[in-house]
Each structure stands twice: as structure tokens, then as C-alpha cells.
């Protein structure tokens, strides 16, 4: 079983600031992390490898410093890492990103052996479109399994995979054939700590670094800004809510009076909630 896990290096959202004049995102000096959602995908891939054998390749498109995130993934136990980096990729929207990543995945298949499953996170914490996974699936003609909470069965003989998928109002149990693209739902597993052996191996490991040509990409018009149909016209900070929370007065009230005042304030703000609460509390 050869799986490819796509990981994105993202700024630690806690530290994001908007330039007060230019309204642009200020990333200088902001620490970066592996997109937290991608760790669920990585753990799912590692668990499959531990059970069925094979290898896990992690792939990241990003600037040279994204190598840090790939090395981190190696310490968790990934077998090899590929960094896709080229100035032609700058400014990619999701269509151009999925083009570049799918080209690299095809090249990974040719170089390191056929790919059975491509994993992505549900979404990122910066662009957070959740569109790159479906984009890769379509371009590589993989059966698409999004919002997967559990892989319930994987038969390497018949190459059939069964998963539980989060759908609206319930869980869909889907069965399909490899190769597939899986986007993993958050909270479905917990990333392992990684062994000392993995840490030592990661420190020495070579990260494979590919530019567009190395990844077999010849159609540069499909990359980066030029390959992106969407244009960000404006970035701005939401108008800060001047009003802090309306505080319920507690002085001189007993507990029950405070509770009643709180309930009154809630229903005053949204009278329709009354009906909702009655319905819900009655068990519907």
C-alpha cells in the first residue's frame, strides 16, 4: 500500500495580523505549523501502513522553508518527503494548486511506485476552502471520498475500500475501488508522538525537492497566478465589534434572579430561540 499525504505549511493562526494600512496579511516572523487538519490524514495513512505494510510519502507545495514541515512529518513516521517548490507556483488558487499537486502525485507514482490512496486534510486553517482534495481527485480520476471519519475496511486483494463519510444529517457508508482520494475529518484520530528512531531518521533524511520541471509540469500557464481563475480583489479585517459582551448585572440578585435575567437577555436578543428550545428540550 503506497499512500501520499498532502500537507500544507500554514501560519499559526493565533499570530496572524492584518497590516493596518495595506490590509494585507503580515506573515513575517509568524511561526509556521503543519496545517492541523492534515495531521489527521497523516495519522490515518501511518495507521494503514502499520497494518498493511507499504509506505507513506508526504507531499507539500510551498516555499523552500516548507521543508521544515515535511521533516516534522518524517519524525511522526512518514517514509519519504517531497517538496514541490517553484516560483511558477506563486499565487495559485485551488485550481492551480490541485493542478501542481496532482502532477507531482503522478510523478511520485512513477518514481516511487503506484499510489493507492491520496490523503488530504479536510481543509486548511488559512485558505480554508476544502477544494484542493476534490480538485486532485478529479484531475487524477481518483474515486473521491471526502469528510471521511473512518476507514472501516480495506481489502488489498479486491482493492475495495469502505468508509464512513460525514454527510448532512447522518453518516454515509460508501464502498469504492482503489485508487481513491480521501479527505480526513478532524478529530478522528490523534497523531502519534513518533519514535526516537523516526526522529533520528528524519534528521538525516533527504527531502526530495522538485521544481515544476522535475514534477513533469510543462504547462506553466496552468500554474500560479496565470493558472488561477479566481482573483482576490480585496483583503480586509472584519469591522471590530466595538461592543463587548453585554454583561448581566449580578449585584443584589440571588442565583435564581441572575439565571432568569440571563434567560431573558438571551430570548430578548433572539425571540425565535424560544420555539427552538421548546422543540429541542422536548427531544426533537
Amino acid at each position, binding site marked *: 500500500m503506497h499512500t501520499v499525504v498532502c500537507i500544507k505549511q500554514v501560519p499559526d493562526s493565533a499570530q496572524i495580523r492584518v497590516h493596518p494600512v495595506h490590509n494585507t496579511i503580515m506573515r513575517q516572523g509568524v511561526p509556521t505549523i503543519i496545517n492541523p487538519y492534515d495531521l489527521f490524514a497523516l495519522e490515518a495513512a501511518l495507521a494503514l501502513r502499520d497494518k498493511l505494510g507499504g509506505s507513506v510519502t508526504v507531499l507539500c507545495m510551498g*516555499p523552500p522553508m516548507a521543508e521544515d514541515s515535511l521533516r516534522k512529518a518524517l519524525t511522526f513516521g512518514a517514509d519519504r518527503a517531497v517538496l514541490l517548490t517553484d516560483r511558477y507556483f506563486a*499565487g495559485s488558487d485551488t485550481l492551480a494548486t490541485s493542478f501542481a499537486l496532482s502532477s507531482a502525485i503522478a510523478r511520485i507514482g512513477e518514481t516511487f511506485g503506484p499510489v493507492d490512496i491520496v490523503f488530504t486534510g479536510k481543509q486548511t486553517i488559512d485558505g480554508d476552502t476544502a477544494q484542493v482534495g476534490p480538485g486532485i481527485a478529479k484531475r487524477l480520476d481518483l474515486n473521491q471520498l471526502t469528510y471521511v471519519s473512518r476507514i472501516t475496511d480495506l481489502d488489498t486483494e479486491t482493492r475495495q475500500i*469502505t468508509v464512513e463519510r460525514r454527510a448532512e444529517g*447522518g453518516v454515509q457508508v460508501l464502498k469504492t475501488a482503489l485508487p481513491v482520494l480521501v479527505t480526513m475529518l478532524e478529530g478522528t484520530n490523534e497523531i502519534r508522538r513518533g519514535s526516537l528512531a523516526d526522529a533520528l531518521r528524519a534528521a538525516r533524511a533527504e527531502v526530495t525537492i522538485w521544481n515544476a520541471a522535475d514534477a513533469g509540469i510543462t504547462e506553466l500557464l496552468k500554474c500560479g497566478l496565470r493558472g488561477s481563475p479566481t482573483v482576490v480583489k480585496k483583503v480586509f479585517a472584519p469591522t471590530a465589534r466595538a461592543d463587548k459582551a453585554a454583561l448581566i448585572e449580578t449585584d443584589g440578585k440571588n442565583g435564581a434572579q441572575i439565571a432568569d435575567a440571563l434567560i431573558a437577555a438571551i430570548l430578548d436578543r433572539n425571540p425565535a430561540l424560544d420555539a427552538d428550545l421548546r422543540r429541542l428540550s422536548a427531544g426533537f
Partner: protein
Amino acid sequence: MSDAPRQTPAPAASRAGMKKELPERFRSYKHVWVFIEYEHGHIHPVSLELLGEGRKLADKLQVDLAGVLIGGDAAELAEAAQVCFEHGADIAYRVADPVLTHYRNEPYTKALTDLVNTYQPEIVLLGATTLGRDLAGSVATTLLTGLTADCTELAIDDERSLAATRPTFGGSLLCTIHTLNFRPQMATIRPRVMAMPLASPGRTGRIVDHALDMTEIDIITKVLQFIPDRDTQKAQLAYADVVVAGGLGLKSAENFQLVKDLAAVLGAEYGGSRPLVQKGWITADRQIGQTGKTIRPKLYIAAGISGAIQHRVGVEGADMIVAINTDAKAPIFDFAQIGIVANAVELLPVLTAAFRRRLSVHRLAS
């Protein structure tokens, strides 16, 4: 990195200043479409919200508004079409075929892509649900057009382009995105953001049928089962209308029971901050925040939670946040709508009792 130039002023500005030069082949693209999410005999509310919003866009552009109905049964879809007409649609495109009974990416992608290529809409809107996002990403990639994700505001600019505004970085930034030189312009829109339009009973429209041209043998993915949430005991935080959560301020696992008690009376889901998972007070599927669940309830009650940014990004989509905290300076009061500076361990049981009184009075009355 791929989006790095979007952050530096110069290239972003030059891109933003790009002129629209719509290629000849796209000039015939007209009308606004809403994909109607129809499953298990119900239209998802977001689809009706989008018909309301789509109506405004279509009026501004002076074009028609259409609903796209894909499903297994033509008669059921005709009924759904009538609902669409009453909520503002002029036309309903219907693709009815037994293989479309349950949502699956492959046949739905074909149905919607074929419709777009045949009837050439300029705008296609879908709800940003698990289904809408699964489908929109595939369709936009097949059509090689732009797709703006999870929008909260739509407008038509002076050049007749769709200006789609969306939050990113977990809500700490907004951006307005255009698809300049491709058609259709596609966007997914966050549920419960656009107002639900009033129905006009008796309003009618025209149904246009389209064949899927695919058989079950062509489709590799099979739906084995659908397990409705109401049949499971698992936490359904992401979809709950009311959520009650606790944090370290509750001091002990025993006190967390107070959160569960309030949730039980309200018929709500319960959850907590990350440290509670680490301490084993709650299971991981109940963690709320950046690395846990993102919730969008109508009411969120947070007791003894400080409101760290990683928690905040998971709850900001709530319609109303009520915070109970002993520290008047706790960051949660910066984004809660209603706050109460109080000891949650004391207040929660009293609040539970007050809600119980109120709700049981109502139940007796009705």
C-alpha cells in the same frame, strides 16, 4: 507559499487591477443558478436561502433564476421544483434517474457539469455543506473555472461580475474574490448567513428535463448505508442548534456534570475546551476549536472557558455566544454577545433549574 503573492501589496494590487476580458466563448453565459440540495425527501434550508439571494443577483443582472434539482424520482423533484418556484426560481432544471437516488460524487458531478455546458449559466451557487463542497470542487475542476469557498456575502459589481466575500484564517480576515475571465462564476455559501426568503404560494415556473446518460454499471462508488444522526449516540456538535461547553474554570471532572445537566434540559449537545480532553474529562469528539470541532449553533453557552484564539475560531460562527466566567477581563467577553461574571460552578445548576422551570411550563401550556 502558493498564496504568498496574494499577501504582498504589489502583486495583489496588480492582480486586483486586472481588467475583465471575457473570452468570446463565455459571452453567451447568462442567468443565475442555485444547486438545490435535495436528500431524503427534503430540501436543505441553505438552498432556499440561496434562492432568496440568487433572486437579488438575477434581478440586478436582469436575468432568470434557476434551481437545479438532481435526484432519483421525477415526481418528487417536481414537488421540490414547486417549492423552488415559490421561493423565487423561474426555471427548474431536473435530472431524474434512479442512480441519483443517493448523493454520490460521480453521477452528480456529471449531471451538474452537463447542465452547465448545455445551458451556460453565468453564476452557479451551492450551499457550503459537506455535499455542496464535495460537488462544487469536482464540478469547478471539470469546468476549469473559479470557485470561491464558504462565502458570507455576494454582490454584483459595476462590470456585472460576482463579488464574493468570504472569511479566511478562521474568521480573522475577510476577502472579496472575483472570477474574471471564466464562466460560470461559482461559489459555495455558508448556511444560515443569507436570509430565508418568504414563500409566495402559487408562484409558478418552468421545469426543464435533462437526461443523465449514465447507468449503475458506470458508477464505481456504492452507497451501502445511511445512518441518520438521530439513530446514533455520537456527539453531533457540528450540526447542533444549541451547544453548552465547559472549560478548565469548572475545576474538576465532577463539576463537568453541571454542563451535561444543562445540555440535557436544553436538548443541547455538550463539549469543551482542549485541556478537558487532555485531562480525560471529555472525549476527543467533544473538543471544540481549531483542532476539534467547528460549531455553528444558534446558541452557544461557554462556562469557565477563557476564549483562547484556538477556541474562538471554532465557535465564532455561532449566532449567539453566552459566556460565564469569573474574570471580567477574560478574552471570551470580547466576542461573546452576552456575558456574566459569575462562578460557573454555582450558576450552572441554578440556570439549569431556571430553564427547566421555563421549558416545562411551556410544555404544560402546549
